[in-house]
């Protein structure tokens, strides 16, 4: 499985970086007020929102190429949590769009969403 590309600094994210952990729980409420709860997903799903500033053309090129190789949110790759270094073996881009804003020479910015796949 391929690995999410690193920036020039060797990291994958910059501050601020947001990580979300989610479960999906279905709640059935009965007429007597009691509830039955069960989980819809097999486990927690992690999601990272990576805001990248001041990235240059080479870094963007690697990211864009990786996005193309994965065909947007279809392909899976290994992603290392930038907060604690834990590796997650099956992750994907969170959406089918990737936008880059170039404010000047080598002054690009983008927001990348990576999420764990539910398998």
């Amino acid at each position, binding site marked *: 499985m391929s690995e999410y590309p690193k920036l020039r600094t060797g990291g994958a994210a910059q501050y601020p970086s947001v990580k979300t952990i989610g479960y*999906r729980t279905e709640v059935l409420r009965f007429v007597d007020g009691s509830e039955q709860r069960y*989980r*819809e*997903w*097999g486990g927690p799903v992690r999601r990272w929102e990576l805001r990248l500033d001041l990235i*240059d*053309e*080479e870094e963007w*090129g690697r990211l*864009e*190429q990786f*996005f*193309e190789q994965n*065909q*947007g*949110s*279809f*392909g899976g790759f290994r992603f290392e949590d930038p907060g604690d270094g834990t590796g997650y073996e099956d992750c*994907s881009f969170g959406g*089918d*769009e*990737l*936008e*880059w*804003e*170039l*404010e*000047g*020479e*080598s002054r690009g910015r983008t927001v990348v969403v990576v999420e764990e*796949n*539910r*398998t």
Partner: protein
Amino acid sequence: MPYFPQLQSGATSQFPTRRRIEKRTVRAESPEGREWKAADGLWRRVEWRLELGGLTSAEWAAVEGLFHEVEGRRGSFTFLDPVGNLLAWSEELEREAWTKDPYLEITREVEDPWGTRRATRLRNTGPVPQKIEQALGAPGWFQYCVSVWMRSEVSGEATVFARTGTAAKNETVQVGGAWRRIVRPVKLTCADELVRFGIELGAGGEVEVFGLQVEAQGGASRYKKSGSRGGVYREARFAEDTLAVKAEGPECYACTVRVVAGL
């Protein structure tokens, strides 16, 4: 074929410029919570958002003229990616996008100026000049900038060229043992709609090249590696049926243009 116009600076866009890539994936969720995905592998869309300011009335008229010519979103035009490398396969010169003469020998994975092995060695084993070139379906009269890093173990010379059916610019450069980025602006006087960019070596010549790049502007920006898709989009369209212009002063207009293109 209509073309998105260049500004008087020779560029197509100004900072900030946005470029967005879109793919398409079908997702389905099974009852036990698993998610299945299927990629629409052939579908790809690119969108540029150009924020143009300080336009003269002639520059605005060119943008407006194109908008009328293609009737908003209806018709298509050729768009040259303002933040991309117009060449395809910039580091794989043996690909079909490139045309090379028969006596030109290509060796890949040569050490490049950045210490990796992405450069290519070109060697002319024949008795006559040999060239490698890529043809772009782009207007010959536009402003371009060709850039490439070169070096040679055996000091020599190479010719960087831009040629159409009726016009050409050939520039012979001395190539030494150290990597040097050659940057050559090109503006031809012609009406041809096919431009060939390339490198020519004399008999016995040998150079190592890296980072071949062509941009539709007067100067070179940082090198951008390209793959199968170069930066010439022949079926681009306006993304909207309206185009607004803001007059900020005499001879000073601003507008935001969204352009989209498929594969």
